[in-house]
């Protein structure tokens, strides 16, 4: 019997998958920086260290920013961002499970969690992308200002 904080293989695989999606998205968008984030994020889950995982996610996000700022295709950047967000969500969930369940099993809950979160994230991304497609030409300055203002306020209110 052991009570080590052992992350499940499911958690490691899911984090790796999400990280790879982020890295591929960023790569298609023109940035290779995110590739370094995948092993770091997986190592963070393996060592059950949220700090290391945050570092890995930060590297993935750096890839998203470089791709976005470098004029990468919007689709690629959005896919990279989805991967980045999911890598954190799934990885943190695996670390939390390892801490509370130790060697106990939590595979099913992890898969369900990953499925629900990726579905909702995908829906939101598609919705955002459709608005973006409509708005790609000639929107007034004030619209962008209000959009940014609104998004920042709502996100801050909900996600504190």
């Amino acid at each position, binding site marked *: 019997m052991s*009570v080590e904080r052992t992350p499940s293989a499911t958690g490691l695989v899911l984090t790796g998958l999400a990280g790879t999606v982020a890295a591929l998205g960023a790569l298609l968008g023109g940035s290779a920086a995110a590739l370094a984030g995948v092993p770091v994020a997986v190592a963070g889950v393996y060592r059950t260290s949220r700090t290391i995982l945050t570092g890995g996610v930060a590297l993935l996000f750096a890839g998203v920013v470089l791709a*976005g700022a470098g004029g990468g295709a919007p689709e690629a950047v959005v896919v990279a961002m989805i991967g980045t967000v999911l890598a954190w969500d799934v990885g943190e969930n695996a670390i939390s499970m390892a*801490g*509370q369940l130790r060697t106990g*099993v939590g595979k099913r809950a992890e898969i369900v969690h990953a499925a629900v979160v990726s579905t909702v994230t995908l829906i939101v991304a598609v919705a955002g992308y459709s608005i973006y497609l409509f708005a790609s030409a000639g929107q007034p300055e004030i619209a962008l200002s*209000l959009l940014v203002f609104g998004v*920042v306020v709502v996100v801050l209110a909900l996600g504190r």
Partner: protein
Amino acid sequence: MSDQNATERLSGSTLGLIAVGSLAVMAAIVFIYDPGLAPTFDPVLVLAYLMPLVGIGAALSLSVTYVRGERLELDPPLVEYRSTVSVPGTSIDSDLAGTTADGPLGRYKRIGAVRTRLQTVLDSVLAQTGVAPEDREATVESGDWTGDRIAAGFFQSSTPFSRSERLRMRLTGEHALVTQARHAIDAIADRLGVTDRKWSGPEQDGARSTIDDGWVGRLSDVDPRTRETDRLRIVTALTLLAVGIGVLLDAGTLVLAGVVGLGPLALRYLGSTSTPQFEMERTLDDTEPDPNGKVRVTVTITNVGDRMGFDLRYLDGVPPGLAVIEGSPRHGTALRPGASTRFSYVIEAGRGEHVFEDGLLVSRDVSGSVERVRHCSASGETRLRCEPKPTGDLSVPVRAKTSANVGRVVTDIGGSGLEFHSIREYRPGDPVKRIDWNRVARGGEPATMQFREEHAATVVLLVDARSEAFVAPERDAPSAIERSLGAIAEVFHSRLDSDDRVGLGTLGVTDCWLAPSAGHGHWTLAKRLLTTESAFTEGSDEKFYPVLAMGRLRKRLPKDAQLVLFSPLADDTAVSMARRLHAYGYPMTVVAPDATATATPGQTVAHLERRLRLSQLRDADVRVIDWQSGEPLGIAINRAQRRWSR
């Protein structure tokens, strides 16, 4: 505002912010659809640059506080281990490590307490190694007792470190007093001749195990509560950063990417907040196992509510006195309404009656950001009963103090018996069989042969059942009280077999007494007491008053009783009680299961203290059986008997 409210509803200010933000977003969308509606001037242009900066700042502060802050999720106890036992000396280790103290001053005080404790040990060690009482203080102050100047310095008024050493310590974050304490423990152990230690020397911290990574306790110690885990703060930070950087760099795709993070955030508020309903059922494959038998526990969790349980983590209430040896009593899963899941683990049975505690259910909402912790009782079997099964061939040697009844203890009284004792002059009335006819035939005076009479002894077995006796050399080793009770069952049984009168008493908070008696009906009583007495299984947190317990015991002890005390001698009270009972005229034998280890400095101190207590008892003419861990009691008795005088 209670945390319950915070998670059930959105607070007023949050709703206000959301309303303002949503209005702005809606206006923006309207303007995007129909640019003609938009005013030609931009009064909030400033906001377009201010808000990204606010967002980036908030994102950085959120992620930094999250990474540096304490985790807001439950850290459940390690139910896999017995929570009733502790390892002697652990408190010294945590004092030295500074985990128990609040602030540098508190830590200094703690180390001061360790120093006082070590001083007492050193004093006894010096007494044992032949330093006269009047010289001891001078020896300690001069540091002559050891060759290690750092160790000597721990008890001296001046620091043994040079300026450069102190500078190096400050740079490496090493605590000077802790280093000295470690050296002192090492030197004292060497002085007493305890060299076969697992803790190799003052440079080492001592062994750490996976248990140090968590805490051992009962599930009932956990407060049921609901809280935010704050795990989505990083997602918030990513969203704000993407939007902020995107606006500042004029990269529309990044602003778009930021929207993605709203998914998990929305999930946290869209997901159901009402708690799913679960039922647990537990079955055991054997409710009355033999000692050290394996029992498989199977738990079935069913979702009886009408809501999906997205993330539930269950910890089964393993009895505090038992340990899990295979599998895990924890299970995590997702259950839709009506579905059920099953898991099992194996525990090792130990003597006594063990009750399963309420399990702990940690359920999270679909986004994992609200965590509910509550206790839930499982239906089905909740009790495990394990009776001692003595083999009956082990006994503690008794002393020659006996009662008038005939038994099997060979006494020094001359009379009828088997073993030759002496010859005395014939007195009228002596049995004809015992007259020394050879002597009469040689023409001498008639004389009578005497044999050693065989009497029954009255033995009262005492068990130290104070909380101090719930100790073990390792977390997963059998505790001292378990070994004691196992041995008591053996000794009780075998002394009854040799026609002695045997009684059972405790030194502990709970009063428990079985008056000395003989016969096999008596064993049944003893077996029941050993099995069902909860003071032996779980211990008690109440304060123990030695004077009261001793008074109670003396009133009950028969005059001709001799005592066998089973105690790990984990504190001085045990020693003083044993010595006092011996002095009252009850011959005392102490069986001391060794529950100390030497893997860390603190454990080494506890080990030294126990050694000193054994010698104190021997000095007081108490017979001592030093019972090492992992050794049959018979071997310990043989070894001890070699040093006893008859």
